[in-house]
């Protein structure tokens, strides 16, 4: 277990996020000029966009070593929350603190370029996630070993790889990053059954090392296997927050209820 036992690593206080949903005409010079003229001459409010409340008043704290599953329907605000924690966008109001080295895997293989070779992509992608060049060099063999690729393949441009190879390489890089806190958005297990098992083992390893994991997933199966705690989000708010065995069944019930109702209405 790590030395930071039971310390707060992620502290989210009353986060809200509003998005502007732009209408089709907006963004073009013509649409903007028309909008600007309407505002200036007729004193009408801007009609170029409407506001969508993606998150409103979200608060929770995560302590070191926890594995938290974020669940909720599409549009509940899970990904927006991870984006804010990863500093992709700023919240509209509220504050958050993150203590410790954090990497966010919002997308495996971000920064991959099809024209660059496997080697070049590994260096770029891994350094993008905060490794130093020396660290990448040290771990390089382990990465291609994990990805089940060989040295000759690594000198080919990435566009020649199959999508499975690309995914394995992306996960291979992700598995060798350095962090106390991991934010993961969807798709933990990639590739064939054997490779999936390897990915899951890597997750277990992270857990046993006392690292903190926050994962978004629609697969309640993997949530129940990994997460010790579940945060259930609905309409941009936290609906329930507690131990997995308590919250997850309720969430599953609710979703199947909704599904049934959906069928009735439809």
């Amino acid at each position: 277990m790590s030395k930071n036992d039971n310390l707060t690593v992620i502290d989210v206080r009353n986060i809200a996020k509003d998005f502007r949903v732009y209408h089709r005409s907006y963004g073009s010079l013509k649409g903007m000029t028309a909008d600007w003229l309407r505002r200036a001459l007729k004193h009408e409010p801007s009609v170029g966009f409407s506001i969508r409340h993606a998150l409103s008043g979200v608060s929770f704290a995560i302590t070191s070593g926890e594995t938290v599953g974020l669940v909720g329907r599409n549009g509940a605000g899970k990904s927006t929350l991870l984006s804010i924690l990863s500093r992709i966008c700023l919240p509209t109001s509220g504050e958050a603190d993150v203590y410790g080295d954090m990497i966010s895997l919002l997308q495996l293989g971000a920064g991959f370029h099809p024209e660059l070779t496997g080697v070049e992509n590994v260096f770029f992608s891994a350094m993008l996630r905060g490794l130093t060049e020396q660290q990448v060099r040290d771990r390089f063999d382990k990465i291609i070993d994990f990805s089940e690729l060989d040295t000759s393949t690594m000198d080919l441009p990435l566009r020649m790889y199959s999508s499975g190879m690309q995914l394995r390489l992306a996960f291979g890089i992700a598995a060798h990053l350095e962090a106390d806190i991991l934010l993961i958005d969807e798709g933990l297990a990639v590739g064939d059954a054997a490779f999936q098992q390897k990915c899951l083992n890597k997750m277990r390893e992270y857990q046993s090392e006392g690292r903190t994991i926050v994962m978004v997933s629609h697969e309640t199966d993997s949530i129940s296997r990994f997460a010790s705690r579940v945060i259930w989000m609905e309409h941009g708010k936290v609906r329930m927050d507690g131990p997995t065995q308590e919250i997850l069944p309720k969430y599953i019930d609710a979703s199947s209820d909704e599904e049934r109702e959906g069928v009735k209405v439809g």
Partner: protein
Amino acid sequence: MPDSRPHIHISPTPAPGWGIVSTIKEVYAYRAMLRMLVIRSLRLRYKNSSIGVLWSLIMPLMQVLVLWVVVGFVLNTGPSNMSAYMLCAYLPWNFFQTSLLDSSSSVLTYMDIVEKVYLPRELLVFATILANAVHFVMALIVFLAYRYLITSFIFGWPGMPPTEIFLLPVVFLIEAAFVTGLSLILCAWTTFYEDVKYILMVTLNLVFYFMPVLYFAENIRYAERIPLHLRTLAYHVYLLLPMTWIVMAFKQMFFKIANIAPRGHVPIISAPFDYRLLAYSALISLVVLIAGMAYFNRMKWKFTERP
């Protein structure tokens, strides 16, 4: 709580003030990534061409050859070594033009990264400008080879450049600061409205003819279309634009004071290097750089929420 762990504070307000200091600190912390981005863009540029980086050497040469045929040969304005003057003036202009064009769309090019991984977004603009600085150095080598090897075989040794040549790094830094400031502003605009890129392309085409690349700034002093009493004023106002002075300064750093009129015309003596304009341009560039950084810092968080 005394705590040695790294700490990130997330709040609705970005870095306080203009964010200049925090940006510089952050970019410094990400310097290895900056290097990677530069290498990556250099690699990608000529990835699938057989002669690769040689294109960077051939392109400015071809460009100037075409210009020289029109200006030096057909129109016959300027001295006999006009092609060397033009190639020299083309160096800072090409750096200016390609840097602005490339960096204005740099955030859009890297949008897949910007939307998924945190990195200081200024880095993308800086990397683009650094990559173009590498191309500038290669073009500079082409120019030196052209002037001191190729043409000196035909026309004889041109003589050493004036002592102001030692100011070349300073003048280039002034230009780089100016370009970076402008690029940051243009990049922020282009990220929201791609129209900016097309407006920029057209504008740069126009500005090219306004720059003393195809002619000399000194020509304005003798331009017959400008009323006599306004010529000196026009000349000085013209040089107050940082880019015109930079282009002229490049010629002044590589060429001794000489007659720059075509043979058989009333002589025009090239102007000496002006240190007051150096100081003035440095100041303007610094202001533009700070303004660009402050503006970019204010806009960068909205990039992922663009319309």
